[in-house]
């Protein structure tokens, strides 16, 4: 899913940091403030029922820790007033590393490699090398399933792009565009991402933008097509549009997206039929 020859290019610092903030929710005033520390957690390394190390997230290291054993984690959580416990058996990291390092392959892409590690971690949890309380089973994830969905959703050698315009005129980056942030991904013939870039890469081709993003987005589309290839999906909006979408609780976002698109708060162009169908189905599912 990630090409080993991926080009990550033309990222402006402001542009990139804005993208991180956008996905991190830092731009949305409606999001609740981060709560305080809340209840604590406990990490324990043990061997044959004896705790070798216990670290409390708020109190720090607990020396001479009285450990009731791996079968009494709920009781321990009550005693220590913690909301989560991670228990690591002394030799489990070594077993995990052996499993991982003997299975990884240079012929696999990084997503496959990552899933190989995930499988080994899952195995350690199943065999109680690692334990968490409250227990949370790790789901079985298959690369082939992810790949199949991706192939169905996005054609090979085409782009998807997200552009968030800055209608306040606060953004100062290298491009000079009134764009808060953007992201352009291209998938190669193997459906691996081979290009990760932003609209900054369109500047050398002479792109200029005005002040009305609902008109300007077409220029971006055309320039992107000339520069990087066919655009499969383009999403264009401003921060207000993103905030409105973010405010909508799941599962109502698909419906909200369609309504915003209708009201031009957000433009999807091209709007692939398969995506439109999926959103409509999602919108129906979101109806009460």
């Amino acid at each position, binding site marked *: 899913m990630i090409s080993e020859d991926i080009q990550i290019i033309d990222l402006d610092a402001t542009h990139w*940091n804005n993208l*991180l903030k956008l996905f991190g929710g830092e731009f949305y005033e409606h999001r609740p403030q981060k709560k305080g520390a809340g209840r604590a957690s406990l990490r324990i390394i043990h061997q044959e029922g004896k705790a070798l190390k216990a670290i409390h997230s708020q109190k720090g290291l607990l020396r001479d820790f009285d450990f009731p054993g791996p079968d009494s984690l709920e009781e321990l959580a009550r005693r220590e007033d913690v909301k989560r416990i991670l228990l690591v058996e002394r030799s489990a*990291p070594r077993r995990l*590393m052996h499993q991982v390092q*003997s299975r*990884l392959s240079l012929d696999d892409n990084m997503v496959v490699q990552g899933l190989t590690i995930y499988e080994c971690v899952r195995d350690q949890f199943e065999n109680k090398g690692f334990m968490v309380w409250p227990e949370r089973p790790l789901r079985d994830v298959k690369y082939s399933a992810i790949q199949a969905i991706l192939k169905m959703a996005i054609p090979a050698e085409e782009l998807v792009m997200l552009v968030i315009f800055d209608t306040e005129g606060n953004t*100062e980056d*290298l491009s000079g565009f009134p764009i808060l942030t953007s992201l352009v991904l291209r998938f190669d013939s193997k459906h691996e991402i081979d290009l990760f870039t932003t609209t900054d890469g369109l500047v050398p081709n002479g792109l200029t933008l005005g002040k009305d993003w609902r008109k300007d987005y077409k220029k971006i589309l055309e320039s992107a097509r000339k520069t990087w290839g066919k655009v499969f999906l383009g999403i264009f909006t401003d921060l207000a549009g993103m905030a409105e979408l973010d405010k909508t609780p799941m599962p109502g976002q698909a419906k909200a997206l369609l309504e915003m698109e209708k009201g031009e708060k957000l433009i999807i162009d091209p709007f692939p039929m398969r995506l439109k169908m999926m959103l409509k189905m999602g919108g129906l599912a979101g109806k009460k």
Partner: protein
Amino acid sequence: MGIQVTSKGLLLDGNLTPLISGTLHYWRLDVENWGPLLDLVKGMGFDVVETYIPWSVHELDKGNFDFGDHRKNRDLDRFLKLVKERGLWVSVRPGPHINAEITYFGYPRRVLADPACQSRSVDGDPVWLPVPPKMFPAPSYAAEAFYKEVAGWYDAVCPIIRENLYPKGPVITIQTDNEFSNMFRTSAYDHDYHPDAIKLYHEFLEEKYKSIDALNKAYRSRYSKFDEVLPAREFAARDRDDLPYYLDWVEYREYYMFNALRRLKRMFEERGIVGIPVTHNYPCGYDMPPNNYTLIESELDFHGPDMYPQRRQYLELKSLVQFAAGLSRYPCIPEFSSGGFLWSLPLGLEDQRFTTPATFMHGIKGINFYMIVDRERWYGAPVSRDGRRRPGYYEFYSQFNRILKSYRIPELEKQTEVLLLSNRDYERLQIASTILDPLPPIMPDMLPPEAHCSEECLGFAQPIQMDAWIMDQAFFFGLNAAKITFNRGNTSQPLSALKKYKVILVSTFEFLAREVQEKLKAYAESGGFLVLGPHLPDFDENMQACTILKDACKEPRLIAGKMPVVGHHCGSGTVVWIQTVLPQADKKTRPGQTTILLRSLADQAGVSFTYTCEDPAIDTVLHQDSQTRILFIANTMDDDRSAEIKLGARETLLDVQSGEEFSGDGTASVPVPGFTVRIMEVRT
């Protein structure tokens, strides 16, 4: 040597040239842009540029290299000639490891795929580096097969470098490898268990002990030859007598790194790369195993820590720079953030404006801005790859270079009388006694000993591996809170380096290497003020009775009121023994009794407190020579402050950037916005 290394820069034909440079990667740029981009770099005031030379890019297949015949932007010689034409110098880094966010870190895939070249885990597996966009197995820097491959690369690239060496050409430094540190995986029991690495381990033991009898005495063992000693696989010591074997294993891992860098340096020399400094860079500046500044600089000319700090990481930055300033022949940062890579913490101009002068404030004399020209897999350099100037960034570097040059800042001496020593014996014990092996595959400073070390006392009064860290942290945060300017060092430093300081602080417990005990005693006897504790050692590194420091302490007298602190005469100096582990300290907790104690000890030793500010958020450091005095004032928090600075009689402060002048009757009030370093000239 044609080029002389000094503590302030390189002497080129007698002219001091501080290494203030910026990186651009020629092979990632259009060849038509090379000249204009170099002009832009020069336009920012740089005299030196820096580049990697990537093996995997130049090698088409084994033994077949492209230096411009296939692709113009691989024409290294042409690039170096363009550098020369512009009157610039260049530092080159031909690997074999280069990272550079390049897939496979610059190693050819075929080399990494060769089992004979791969580092091995304790279970004999390849050792994978979890880095995007593709994980790959780390090479073994002990494997003969790997060095054979590297020799092929060096055979190809070194003739081009040799043709462009100073004084005929622009190449003034060359770096061996890159960010070694066992490929970011520093656990003692993670790797390298390659057969050639185990052979090297036995050579190390033989070099250290000379005879098997000496080793048997230290290990309480009955080996008949060195190659019978099995490498340590996990920490299983029960008592202090078991420790020498494990401490040696960690020391060997330092030797492994040293041996690799020495070997690569010699491979350069065999190919005619002589007469210029050979350097290296750490991915982390903490001088903890396997890093060993003193050992590495016994072979290389200088090296330093790479740093990509956010502005909120001021104390981490300060600490790393203090190590470089206290340990290196020429304190440099080979890579300092000018932009960042995507999977690092986000960085922007506001970070760079604060952190860049902060490095010079704490003693850096040379810096390489990485990257000064943008490229793929990077963001935030001041110049884009097609030659556009990034607003704010280009002006910042231009102005900063002007200030460095106008006020000769790299030439000034940081005024410090205090050295905080890390204790190599206890650092080795920390690394040896991990119970989270083979994790952590990250740097030791990211995971403190209390998070991964055994809590066993091992026959001592307390778990030294954990309490030594607490003591070090207490000293570090205590010195900061007490407003004492200091450098950091390590017990492996020579006595001559220690003697430069009026006061030395070091944690000591029940064992301490004989050589270190002798060195510290000699320091105190020669008039130094040595602060140690919580124990005076009873044993040496082999757990044999050794009370050199204890025997040297005469005529005890109580020093501090509330804490058990005793002073001793020692020759013409003083040994102060803090007889307890100081209270735990960190960024948020700085116990007042430690601050008061350290302030009182500094007063007794005659340490100067002029130009300090009592506000805990304000840090100050003075640099000076016979002509110029520069005071750095840092506001380390995000809110604006007014710094009340203690001045000498009739002194004023002039902001070298804005031209504002501040004076007062013994104290000047200087407004300092949040996360800002003001650079002030002290005028009389």
